[in-house]
């Protein structure tokens, strides 16, 4: 009965599907293409890498980019392009494995404390306060230091710290959604708490979390390669972008391509995830 905005007129006519709208946004499409190709490289590096990434050739050490070696070769004469490509599987795996457990734990915990509030929520609040006062990287490094270096331990460390960010976001969104009467009407309908939380609140509350997840995957690659660079993540001779950059570090003035090419790969995949996240925000928003 109120006209809040001049545009809120009458019921909307049928609109294009959300996917159609999203596909017209160049950013989203570019993001999808980048991540699609990255996934392909990660799944089947052998199809794209021109050489065996671990084939050592002392006759061709630190060669600059050429037709034979588009990204040049490293100090052991390994083909840089092949090593960057073979690193896709480790780095894309990082993007997923370093975030997905945090996502699931965070969503469930956040939804529960947001719904029930009370004591659990207060304890949760303290945990969040405690964790977010430390810089993320410092905390992760501390956990890795305790568990020991390596990929699995790195995933554990990132999950242990990262879930609170998801949970915090989810909790706030669930509380906001509970202001809507559909949550109250679930109670009135006699639905179980589990149904109300997971079937009604969660699908409506999860959009910002999914968008954050995309950004977080980009950050996870960055974090994973930082740890690799520091020697706490993937271990050489495993081809991993952070490891590759670290290997090239000593030759940065003479063989710049060794560090630059994996760096570009990091930027590109990060950009891809961010662009998708942006598009998803529009794609997942409910109408009405």
């Amino acid at each position, binding site marked *: *009965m*109120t*006209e809040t905005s*001049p*545009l*809120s*007129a*009458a*019921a*909307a*006519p049928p609109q294009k599907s959300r996917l159609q709208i999203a596909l017209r946004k160049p950013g989203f499409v570019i993001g999808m293409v980048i991540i699609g190709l990255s996934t392909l490289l990660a799944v089947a590096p052998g199809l794209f890498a021109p050489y065996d990434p671990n084939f050592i050739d002392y006759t061709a050490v630190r060669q600059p980019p050429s037709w034979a070696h588009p990204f040049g070769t490293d100090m052991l004469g390994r083909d840089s392009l092949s090593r960057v490509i073979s690193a896709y599987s480790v780095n894309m795996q990082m993007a997923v494995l370093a975030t997905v457990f945090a996502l699931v734990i965070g969503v469930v915990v956040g939804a529960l404390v947001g719904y029930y509030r009370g004591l659990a929520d207060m304890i949760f609040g303290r945990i969040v306060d405690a964790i977010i006062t430390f810089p993320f990287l410092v905390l992760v490094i501390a956990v890795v230091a305790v568990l020991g270096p390596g990929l699995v331990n790195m995933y554990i460390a990132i999950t242990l710290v990262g879930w609170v960010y998801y949970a915090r976001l989810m909790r706030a969104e669930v509380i906001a959604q509970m202001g809507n009467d559909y949550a109250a009407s679930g109670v009135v309908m006699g639905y179980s708490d589990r149904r109300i939380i997971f079937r009604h609140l969660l699908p409506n509350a999860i959009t910002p979390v999914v968008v954050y997840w995309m950004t977080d995957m980009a950050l996870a690659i960055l974090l994973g390669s930082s740890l690799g660079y520091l020697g706490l993540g993937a271990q050489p001779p495993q081809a991993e972008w952070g490891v590759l950059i670290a290997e090239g570090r000593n030759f940065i003035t003479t063989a710049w391509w060794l560090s630059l090419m994996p760096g570009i790969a990091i930027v590109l995949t990060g950009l891809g995830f961010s662009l998708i996240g942006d598009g998803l925000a529009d794609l997942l928003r409910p109408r009405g």
Partner: protein
Amino acid sequence: MTESQPILEVSNLCTTFRRGDRVLPAVRDVSFSLGKGEVLGLVGESGSGKSVTLRSILGLSRRYGEVSGAVRWMGQDIAALPERRLRRIRGREIAMIFQEPMTSLNPLLTVGMQLTETLKAHTDLGRKARRDRAIEMLDHVGIPAAASRLQDYPHQFSGGMRQRVMIAIALAASPKLLLADEPTTALDVTIQAQILDLILSLADELEMGVILVTHDLGVVAQTCQNVAVMYAGRIVETGPVRQVLRSPRHPYTEGLMRSVPQDVPPRTQLYSVPGTPPSLDALPPGCAFAARCANRTAACLDARPALAPVGGQRSLACFNPARAAQGDAA
């Protein structure tokens, strides 16, 4: 009913919004005039264009859409005025109040500051005189202990009191026209009655014209001399309140009047207009009300009836209106 020279003449006002690919004709060919001291009610349902019409008069819709047509204020077409010149008219000659006073008052400034700011912009009063005038205004709109409340922030006032503050600010520069956009919709009935009384007595006192946008026919009946009924962006019926409400002739006005449960046996079926208003970007080529209308003929689907005088100061946009009641019209 004022017969003198109109102070405001709106002719063929059209406002169109665009949202993506959608073209939304929010206001179409709206024409009316307002005499000195006249209170005109603009009624309609959500999306009928009544609020947009009001905003278009003051040039507030230009930023969001295209506005065409003429708005003659004291003989001058203000629809074409540049923003700078329009700003001098807003607040000083034409004031506006909104439905939700909390969002139109600045929460970070005291009420006194907001009042004196308006006075500073629109009058030549000195500092002390502005303060005195501010107290006078608050007192005038019925705020107890006005002097001590200048220091208060909007959130320290209740809903009804905030609307009074809004009115005090709107009227600070003694405007000649007040545009009121659902000023009492957010208020309770007992407070609504107080606020409407206040607006009416101030209008009378200051010889100020008022255009009151509302969806409540009761409010129109109790406060306005003339009424214009809007549907899907157009005025469909207009005339003196007594005549229009007593014997509505447009089937839509009639439907609205009859949907209100007054003087019907309790717990019986109410008259109701079938269907819902059309979406603005899917308006039919003919009469927009045709799909819901009981008097519809083939002509209504093909052509759009124009608003035309039917005698007795009334105008109507309908091919098959209800018959004029006896004693009605000239």
